[in-house]
């Protein structure tokens, strides 16, 4: 097992170095492909392994804990330097405070004791799979994408080496983060992801990119600071760095729970929960693979992972309810903000934050049912959302816009991309797919808490609206014999894989649950029979639903595919149709082309007006949550 773990964490780092130093694009392509393949294989191989904690003795004669400590300070130094470079007092302040507290913590507080550095359990296993497989697919997608991206920018010197360096490093850091058992190691990887995301967001070096990357950095440094404080408080009570030992102890008094509350706050900043959502929205300026990587499989998932990881340490406390309410509030607030958006990437960003809110809410609800919901949501949301990001990236390169109004009628010219996008959207919002199943579990788990359930009910309706209208406007008529759409192999491979994965894994979800999630609990929330998940509170008949709706949908597709035999007529336009579909003869006997726009409910869901209100409310809720720990 130890070899696999090192492979998962160190291989991306080595591959990243290769990409950075060897400036040949062929070598880079090969390295990325090979790393992707090996990571996928290694993460799958990890499935069949015995799981036991792993101690890392020393590397090249240096004790590994000491090495990590040195790297920690080096990292903080680098971040501080960027703070100086961009003249951000916030970054400087937060890093200095972090460094000071960390030094105190490591030198004075921690009594050195050997702690297993890594441990594998069900949650980290699923996270490793998500990171290694989806992350690799995104990196593969980035190869042709970045080539075209740079052609657009007319760069003198390719900056892809740096790009792939940080992309791959990111994967390694994420794997390290989810596998860490020593809280200091967790903190180290947490900081690496912060630095990587900063570099990736600012990759294009435009004014706005730099501004947004600096914002991401200070918000995440705040998260880092919060993490250090949390770590110290927890350690001062339980006296160990071993995460599994901390979790096994459960909540132990106000001081320790407050510490966990700070750890959750760190998770909130990473997961871009309201009021920290602005860094993730700003991250949209980065090339699309970055957004996909940040939003689906890594970065933000690191945040929810931390909250979810420490769930046993605050179960049954008021902090737990606070986390649930904060998460539910983010779910609702970001769904509401999303209604007003027409920028495709912003919709994806808000919907991501919203879904992360749902996951965090589940962690806060802290019942086996809710934890199951959270893990399933992490998995399925990662697949569907990364698919959608890659779709938007492909569409953007095809039509030169990421506005969904410009995507209207995309099917006419790009049937393949449009169909995949529609499927991606459907897997995000409809049964029998996994994300909806997760939402269903979340609703059933949340029904026990009136504040949570009301926010979830409203957020759920808003979610339905912004997805449905996006899916609908992609559909259009396509002329017979129109030119076929061409898609590069390295673009269509990740798209098809993710698309298939979203459908097939949803179908397999009862077994995923049974083999990977049920063993986590003493009393598993569901019993499995005939491919449906049954509980006393309700049941989700996954396989029967798949059969009924799937066969029905297949029949519908078959019926629809014969449409050329049916009489095709133009839409009804009060009888004054002109040549092209949708065009009518208007004033002065001239043609008026078709145009339409979605209702964005500007007067109700204006981003500018709502954001400050939501931020203020969220800050109040977070204060309430942290106070609840006392």
């Amino acid at each position, binding site marked *: 097992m130890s070899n696999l773990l090192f492979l998962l964490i160190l291989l991306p780092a080595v591959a990243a170095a290769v990409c950075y130093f060897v400036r040949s694009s062929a070598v880079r392509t090969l390295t990325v492909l090979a790393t992707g393949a090996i990571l996928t294989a290694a993460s799958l191989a990890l499935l069949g392994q015995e799981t036991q904690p792993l101690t890392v003795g020393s590397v090249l004669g240096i004790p590994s804990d000491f090495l990590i400590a040195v790297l920690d300070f080096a990292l903080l130094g680098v971040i501080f330097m960027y703070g100086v470079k961009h003249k951000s007092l916030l970054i400087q302040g937060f890093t200095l405070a972090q460094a000071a507290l960390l030094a105190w913590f490591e030198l004075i507080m921690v009594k050195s004791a050997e702690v297993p550095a890594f441990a594998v359990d069900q949650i980290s296993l699923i996270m490793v799979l998500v990171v290694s497989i989806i992350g690799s697919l995104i990196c593969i997608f980035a190869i042709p994408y970045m080539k075209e991206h740079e052609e657009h920018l007319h760069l003198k010197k390719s900056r892809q080496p740096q790009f792939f360096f940080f992309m791959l490093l990111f994967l390694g850091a994420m794997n390290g983060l989810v596998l860490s058992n020593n809280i200091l190691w967790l903190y180290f990887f947490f900081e690496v992801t912060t630095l990587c995301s900063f570099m990736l967001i600012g990759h294009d070096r435009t004014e706005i990119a730099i501004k947004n990357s600096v914002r991401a950095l200070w918000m995440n440094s705040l998260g880092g600071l919060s993490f250090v404080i949390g770590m110290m408080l927890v350690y001062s009570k339980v006296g160990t760095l071993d995460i599994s030992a901390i979790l096994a102890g459960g909540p132990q008094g106000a001081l320790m729970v407050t510490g966990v509350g700070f750890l959750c706050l760190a998770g909130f900043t990473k997961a871009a929960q309201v009021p920290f959502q602005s860094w993730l929205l700003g991250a949209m300026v980065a090339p699309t693979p970055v957004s996909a990587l940040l939003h689906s499989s890594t970065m933000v998932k690191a945040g929810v992972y931390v909250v979810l990881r420490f769930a046993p340490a605050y179960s049954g406390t008021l902090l737990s309810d606070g986390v649930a309410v904060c998460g539910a509030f983010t779910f609702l607030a970001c769904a509401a903000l999303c209604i007003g958006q027409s920028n495709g990437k912003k919709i994806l960003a808000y919907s991501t934050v919203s879904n992360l809110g749902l996951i965090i809410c589940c962690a806060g609800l802290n019942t086996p049912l809710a934890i199951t919901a959270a893990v399933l949501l992490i998995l399925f949301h990662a697949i569907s959302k990364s698919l959608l990001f890659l779709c938007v990236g492909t569409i953007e390169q095809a039509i030169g816009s990421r506005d969904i109004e410009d995507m209207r009628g995309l099917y006419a010219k790009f049937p393949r991309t449009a169909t995949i996008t529609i499927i991606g959207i459907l897997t995000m919002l409809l049964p029998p797919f996994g994300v909806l199943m997760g939402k269903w579990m979340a609703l059933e788990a949340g029904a026990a808490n009136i504040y949570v359930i009301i926010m979830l009910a409203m957020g759920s309706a808003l979610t339905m609206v912004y997805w449905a209208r996006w899916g609908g406007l992609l559909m259009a008529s396509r002329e017979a014999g129109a030119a076929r759409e061409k898609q590069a192999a390295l673009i269509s491979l990740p798209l098809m894989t993710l698309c298939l994965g979203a459908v097939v894994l949803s179908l397999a979800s009862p077994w995923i649950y049974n083999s990977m999630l049920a063993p986590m609990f003493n009393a598993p929330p569901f019993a499995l029979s005939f491919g449906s998940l049954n509980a006393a509170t309700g049941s989700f008949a996954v396989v029967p639903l798949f059969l009924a709706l799937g066969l029905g949908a297949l029949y519908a597709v078959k019926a629809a595919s014969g449409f050329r035999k049916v*009489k095709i*007529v*133009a839409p*009804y336009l*009060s*009888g*004054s*149709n002109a040549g092209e579909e949708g065009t009518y*003869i208007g004033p002065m006997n001239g043609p008026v082309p078709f145009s339409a726009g979605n209702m964005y409910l500007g007067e109700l869901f204006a981003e500018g007006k709502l954001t400050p209100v939501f931020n203020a409310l969220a800050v109040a809720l977070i204060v309430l949550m942290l106070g609840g720990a006392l």
Partner: protein
Amino acid sequence: MFGSFIKKSRAKSPWIMHFDCGSCNGCDIEVLACLTPLYDVERFGIINVGNPKHADVLLVTGTVNHRNKKVLKNIYDQMPEPKAVIAIGACGNTGGVFRDAYNVVGGIDKVIPVDVYVPGCPAKPEAIIDGVVVGLGKFAQKVEEAE
């Protein structure tokens, strides 16, 4: 059995699209009068729909002119088969008193095939209902011929 039920249903559910092709509104008012409680054509399953794609019977009032003949043709084309056309009033039948006007093409049948002509200036509601009933008979006949 289902086929014969469909056949029977055709006569029992004629959805009507009313198109004013430049009428003086005399006939239009009479068409709408058919829907009032006094005549209550919904008894026969007749519904006034506003969309050729949902209609079985096209009721046209008024003369056709060069401006609206395209519209009339387009609406007729957008009705799915089987369908019937009923021209209402003197103008719809022949162009009426306007037939010699410079801008008038003539009756409805100059543009689309007409199944039933309902005379009158304006046509009485009873005559219109009668026209629809005759029209239904005609299109049952047409369906049978087609089969």
